[in-house]
Each structure stands twice: as C-alpha cells, then as structure tokens.
C-alpha cells in the first residue's frame, strides 16, 4: 500500500498529486497523457528527486515527510527506465552484478537464473552497446529484479521499442509479474498495455491523481480515459480452453462462456478478452436462429445520455462483470430500454488482448 | 544629385585622411626609446619637458633590460636604449648596433626595512641576522643585486645573511618583497623610497649605502642604428645631459657621475 501526497516542481510544471492510497499488488498502471506528470510522480515515489515534498508511506514505512526523504538507495525498490539506463562501462554481467553485490543474500546462481528467465543469459558477456533495444530493456528488467525489490517501478519501458519487441516484452512482463509476485507500478499511455497488464489504474491529468480504481471499474465507465477512437471497450478476465470443432476456442468467465475463432497458436490458460461496445447489439427477446455466436443474457444497469445519435448502455452479466453496448438513440427509444430490464447482448466480434 | 553627394563625401574623407598625419607631423618627429623599467617614471617626466620645449614626440617602451636587449638584437624598432646597466649598451656598441654608450644616471643602493631600525642600527641588524628573509635583486641579472652582494662582502656579513636571501628578478621585484611585508628588509634602490607616489614613502626607515662600498651602479644609454639618422633622437640624447634633466634625475634618487 502506497499512501501519501506528493508535490514536485520541474521547471514550470507542478506535480501536486493530492492525497492518494494505492494498493500495491499485481500491476498498477499509471495512465495519462504525456505531460500529465506520470514520470514525475513515479520519481517522487521512488525518492529520486531531492526537491520532492509532501508525505509518503509504503505500508508502515515512512518514505517521505516534508523535506525529509528516505534515499532511493534505502527503499528496496527497483526501477526500469524508459531508456534502460544501463551502465556503459560494464558489460551485461557487470550490470547485473552491480545489483547483486548491493542486494543482501543474492547469489550468482540466482542472478543467472533471473538472466535466463528474462532471456538474456546468452548475452551475459556482451558489451551493452551491442544489444538491441529489446535486449537492453530485458537487461534493465533483469538488473532491477536481481536487486530483489519489494516494489518495481517501470517508466514506459516499451515506448522506445518496435512493434515486435513490444509484444514480446509485454508478454515477459506479464509472466514476471505473476511468477515473481513483485508488485509493479507501470507507467504507460497505451490503453492496450493497461488492458493487458493492469489490475488497477491510477489516472493522472495535469499533475494530479484524478482517481485510482480497479481495471474493471475503469472500463465500466463509458467515458473512461482508456477509451480511444474505437470507443468504449469491455475486458473480460477468464480461462482460454482447448480448440474444438471448426477451430472454435472456448473462453470461460465465471458468468458466461464465449467463443472465439481465428487465434491459432494461442495456448490455453489465463487470458483477457476485449469487446468493443460498438460491436455489441441488444435484443429484448432471445434471438432465434442467427449467425452471431456469442449471445449473453444481461441486465441493463444504466444508460448514458445520448451523444451524436448514440447511447452507451452499461449491462451486467450474471457474475457482476460489466459489458458495454453502444446502440443508436433511436433503438434505445423504440425498445424503451430502462435500468433493470433483462436483455440479450449480441456480440459481433471478440478479440484476445495481446 | 546623388553623384554630387558622393563627391562631397569623398572629399571630406580625403580631407580627413590627409589631415591626420599632417597634424602629427606638424609638431615634430616621433622618437621611440627603450627604457629599463626602473627608470621609466623619471624619463617620462623628462620626455614631457622635452616635448614641451622642442615639439618632438618621444615614446617609451619599458621592460627588463635583458628583454629589451634581446628585442633590439632581433630588430625591434627602437631609436634609443636606456639600459639599467652598462654591459648591454657596451655589447651593442661592440656589435656595431649602437654608438658609444654614455652614463646617464648612477643608482643609489639603500637598505630598507618597514620595522627594523636600519638607519642607525644597520650594522647590528645585519650581524645578528635575526630576520627570516632579506630581499635582494638577483645578482646575476640585476646590477643592484650585484652591488648588494659587494656591500655585504665588504662588511663581512655575507656568510651570515646569505641563507636568508630571497631574490627578486629585478630591483622592482625585490622591493615588492619588502613593501608587502614578506621579507623583513632588503637592498633596494633609493629611487623607490623617495618617490612621493611610492607605496613606502615616509614609512619605515632606510640606510643609504655609501657609494664606496660597491662598484658604481651605472646606467648607460646608447643611440641605436635606427636613431642615428633622427635629429630628434640625437636632440633627446643631448637633452638628457642638460641641467634641467639632471635636476629631475637627481630628484628621483639617482646621482650623476
């Protein structure tokens, strides 16, 4: 749990977080437009800037109190910078060793194990200058993990990478977050990264924390900042099953079963499913024979005011998960939709988040 | 219209350009003299009088004699050379670069101290040698230094005070050591003590060393190759022997042989 209130001035920009309380389990995304103060907040939380003021507690530990600041070197944290920030005078092994020698009780063997897990074991004796962008970021992640952090900060670690490396690293971070159990504070301005990794989102704008909420809640708001030009999105967490007839993949969430097609090579297991609200239609009667695969019984919870001839309808599944549907205002009127009504959601298209 | 304007402008420029050297020449010739640094102030006063009386302009380039000598040998454009010793003018004369030297001033050596009673008690002060440093000019390069060495030898005090020597590269430098309090006392030039504008004027006390205790500190001047053809240069050399010039030289603490 990170609890506090921090201010930090950088040139003309003022970070003034306001009081906050952030649960630190799993991955917490710090989301906001560039210039919203995400990086500054992360630096302030990590204790990297001596100009930081305010107060901050990590659990019961005091990290910042007015001008007093527990140095970053004493906070048992890890930090992965946008540009990796590898030491150019050391090779890959030297970079990892730098962390190992300063972390209590970390053996060379466990260091090498981390290098293997992160996928840079074969690069240990190379100069950091010879690494690709993706490899550099892997070394930075491995270095941070070697120091056995209690909290890992990541400042847009993927933003400088090309599409392929980005996808690979996103998978790696997801795996590491689960396997190491180290809580992560992750800065990004890409909604897809949030939907893929985060359990919790900290929204920032103009140097303030606007709100902290779970990903599920964040996505249940039709005006969520996570939604871009594609409009509102619903994300389901569940289990992907083994492929069946006609290449159909079952996706099981506690409240429903959905079917996917056309994602060859995807292994069964935990996954997230993404549904655009504009791909969801509503019917009051159970549709008879129709080509649409995924039909779910829902309850209308709430209807957003009209905008541009359309309305967004927030529906609830049996298990409480929310599904957003975007329909024309005219349809909503003719169907006389109202909160509490039972309906059927017809989903034209679903996709795995990756 | 435009053309006449240009013509008029050109005429003005031409007039301005021709007027410059004319006005400089109108008052006489320009002479350049190389002067040993210690004598600069004295000769500038003489030069000002000379200009007043004759209309000739005289410019002084001052520096350590050794440096000036090296410059002259390497073609520096000087008409006259006023050295701080006699050796360098004689060398120039022997090399055919200058006429016969003449001694224009004789330096007076003084033992000066801001604190010690050297006027009456110089003998005791030198005998006891209770001070930390005694400043002299470098005897190898400066005539005042060589003279100081001779004085100490003839007084039989050299052995005792030699370990206390600090050497200035010139007499001006040795004087600085004493004037700033870094050396307790020093052999300096009388001219440095009697200058009313000097830093120690009226402070401390000095013993004027009798001239028979050391060989004369003669300063000689020569007319250089370049000055032979200049009536103004020759005129200034004559002026240096005039009673008016002698009066100034003596007032600045030199004697005249």
């Amino acid at each position, binding site marked *: 749990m990170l609890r506090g209130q921090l201010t930090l001035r950088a040139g003309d920009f003022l970070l003034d977080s306001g009081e906050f309380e952030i649960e630190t389990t799993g991955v917490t995304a710090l989301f906001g437009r560039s210039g919203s103060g995400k990086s500054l907040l992360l630096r302030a939380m990590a204790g990297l800037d001596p100009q930081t003021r305010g107060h901050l507690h990590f659990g019961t530990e005091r990290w910042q109190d007015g001008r007093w600041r527990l140095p*970053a070197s004493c906070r048992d944290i890890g930090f992965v910078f946008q540009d990796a920030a590898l030491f*150019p005078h050391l090779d890959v092994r030297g970079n990892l060793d730098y962390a190992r020698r*300063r972390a209590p009780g970390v053996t060379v063997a466990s260091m090498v194990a981390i290098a293997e897990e992160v996928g840079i074991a074969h690069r240990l004796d190379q100069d950091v200058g010879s690494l690709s962008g993706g490899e550099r970021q892997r070394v930075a992640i491995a270095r941070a993990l070697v120091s056995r952090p209690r909290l890992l900060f990541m400042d847009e670690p993927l933003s400088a990478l090309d599409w392929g490396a980005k996808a690979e690293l996103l998978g790696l971070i997801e795996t590491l977050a689960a396997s190491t159990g180290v809580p992560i504070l992750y800065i990004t301005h890409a909604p897809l990264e949030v939907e893929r990794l985060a359990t919790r989102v900290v929204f920032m704008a103009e140097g303030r924390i606007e709100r902290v909420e779970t990903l599920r809640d964040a996505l249940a708001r039709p005006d969520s900042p996570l939604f871009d030009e594609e409009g509102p999105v619903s994300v389901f967490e569940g289990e992907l099953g083994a492929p069946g007839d006609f290449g159909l993949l079952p996706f099981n969430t506690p409240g429903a079963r959905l079917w996917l097609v056309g994602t060859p090579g995807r292994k069964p297991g935990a996954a997230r499913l993404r549904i655009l609200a504009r791909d969801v239609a509503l019917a009051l009667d159970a549709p008879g024979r129709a080509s649409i695969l995924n039909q779910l019984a829902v309850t209308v919870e709430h209807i957003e005011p009209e905008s541009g001839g359309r309305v967004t309808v927030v529906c609830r599944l049996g298990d409480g998960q929310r599904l957003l549907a975007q329909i024309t205002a005219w349809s909503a009127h003719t169907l006389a939709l109202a909160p509490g009504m039972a309906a059927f959601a017809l989903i034209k298209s679903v996709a795995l988040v990756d | 219209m435009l053309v006449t304007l240009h013509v008029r402008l050109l005429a003005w420029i031409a007039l301005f350009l021709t007027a410059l050297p004319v006005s400089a020449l109108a008052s006489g010739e320009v002479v350049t003299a190389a002067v040993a640094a210690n004598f600069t102030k004295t000769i500038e006063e003489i030069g000002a009088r000379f200009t007043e009386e004759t209309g000739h302009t005289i410019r002084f380039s001052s520096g350590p004699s*050794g*440096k000036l000598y090296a410059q002259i040998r390497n073609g520096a454009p000087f008409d006259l050379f006023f050295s701080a010793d006699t050796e360098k003018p004689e060398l120039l004369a022997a090399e055919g670069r200058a006429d016969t030297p003449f001694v224009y001033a004789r330096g007076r050596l003084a033992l000066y101290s801001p604190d010690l009673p050297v006027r009456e008690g110089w003998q005791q002060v030198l005998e006891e040698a209770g001070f930390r440093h005694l400043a002299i000019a*470098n005897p190898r390069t400066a005539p005042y230094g060589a003279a100081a060495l001779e004085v100490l030898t003839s007084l039989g005090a050299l052995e005792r005070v030699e370990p206390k020597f600090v*050497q200035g*590269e010139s007499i001006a430098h040795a004087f600085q050591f004493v004037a700033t*309090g870094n050396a307790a006392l020093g052999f300096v030039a009388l001219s440095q003590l009697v200058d009313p504008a000097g830093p120690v004027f009226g402070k401390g006390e000095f013993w004027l060393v009798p001239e028979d205790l050391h060989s004369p500190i003669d300063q000689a001047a020569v007319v250089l190759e370049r000055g032979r053809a200049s009536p103004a240069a020759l005129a200034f050399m004559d002026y240096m022997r005039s009673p008016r010039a002698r009066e100034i030289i003596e007032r600045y603490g030199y004697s005249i042989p």
Partner: protein
Amino acid sequence: MIELFGASISLEPIWLTLQVAAVTTVILLLLGTPLAWWLARTRTRWRVVIEAIVALPLVLPPTVLGFYLLIVLNPNGAVTQFLRGFGFEGQLTFSFTGLVIGSVLYSLPFAVQPLMHAFESLSERLLDAAATLRAGTLDRFFSVVVPLSRRGFLTAATLSFAHTVGEFGVVLMVGGNIPGQTRMVSIAIFDHVESLAYTEAHVLSAMMLVFSLVVLTLVYGLNRRFGVKVG
C-alpha cells in the same frame, strides 16, 4: 650539475619543479573534484559567479595573481596568522608550501573545467539507476561517476601537472628564487636569458619542451586507448 651541449645545467630546479607539479596535481584533484561536481550539478544562481572565479587565472596575468598572493600570504597577513594558531611556524611565501598554494590557484581551472565537463556530460539517469540498485551517494560516485569520467580525470591531471611545470609568473612572485627551495625551471630559464647565458637557456628550454611533448603525447595515447565507449 650536469654538462649538456657545453652548458652546465643544475638538476635541482628540474627536480623541484617535478615535486611542486606532482603535489599540486594531487591537491588539485582532491580539491577540484568536489568543486567540479558541485558546479556541474548545482542549480543555484551563484554557480556562474563561482565558475567565473575559478576561471579567473585563465585571464588574469600570473604576475597579478602572484602579487596578490604576496599580499595575502605575507607573514603578518590573516592566512599566516590563522595557521600560527595551529602551531605553524614557517612562512608561506618563499617556501615550497607557498609555491604549491600559488600553483594550485593558478592551475585550478585546468583541473576543474575538464572534470566539470565530464560530470556534466554524465547522464543523470545512470545515477538514478544506481540509486535504485541500493548504491549510496559515495558508492555512486566511485562506481559510476569515476569510471565514466576517466577521460576528464586524466585530462585534469595532465593539464594541472603540465601547467604547473610551465608556470612562471606566480612562482616568480611568491618564490624568491631560493636555490633548491623555490628556484623552479622556468625561473632558471628566465635567469639564464636575463644574464645572457643563452646556451644554458636553450638547453633547459629544450628539455622542458621535450618533456612536455612526451607527457602530452603519452596522455593523448592513453586517452585513445582507455577512452570510454558510450553506446
């Protein structure tokens, strides 16, 4: 005393010069490093003033600096009196100590500026990264700053040393030309020139020229070999 090309050269000034230069260089590195670090990192507006003061010896005629030292370090001056309080008995001017003090001030910019530039070009991120890996302030300095500023240190040391060897004005003013104590090479050369002993002056000058050339070549060679690659 050695005979070289028909000139008898005293080795004493050479030995003394090397000693002064070595001591000066060590002191300058110890003193210049924190100063350069502060200058490179501080955000105070006093920075420009301090920078200007450090750079003063570059523009000030050395004899001016020497003259002020003569006044500041004189036996009745505050500095000497202050040291007397700690049992100091000697005199600062006309001594090895005085020469070193003068040289340190005179060569200060030659040590501080290369270090400052090295520190300035150092990425702040690397220090942040080190801090999050549990490296404290001093640890960061020695494990990140020093190895990444090798060039700067090498340049600072060489320039300080070479500049001290070649210095003249300051030692002329505060030295007093005492054989074996304060007569450095440059003064010896000046003496030879002034007393028209040109052969000795030539030999000594040539020795200094060759020495300086060798040192600088060595340093540039080392710099090239151990230059830090920043990828």
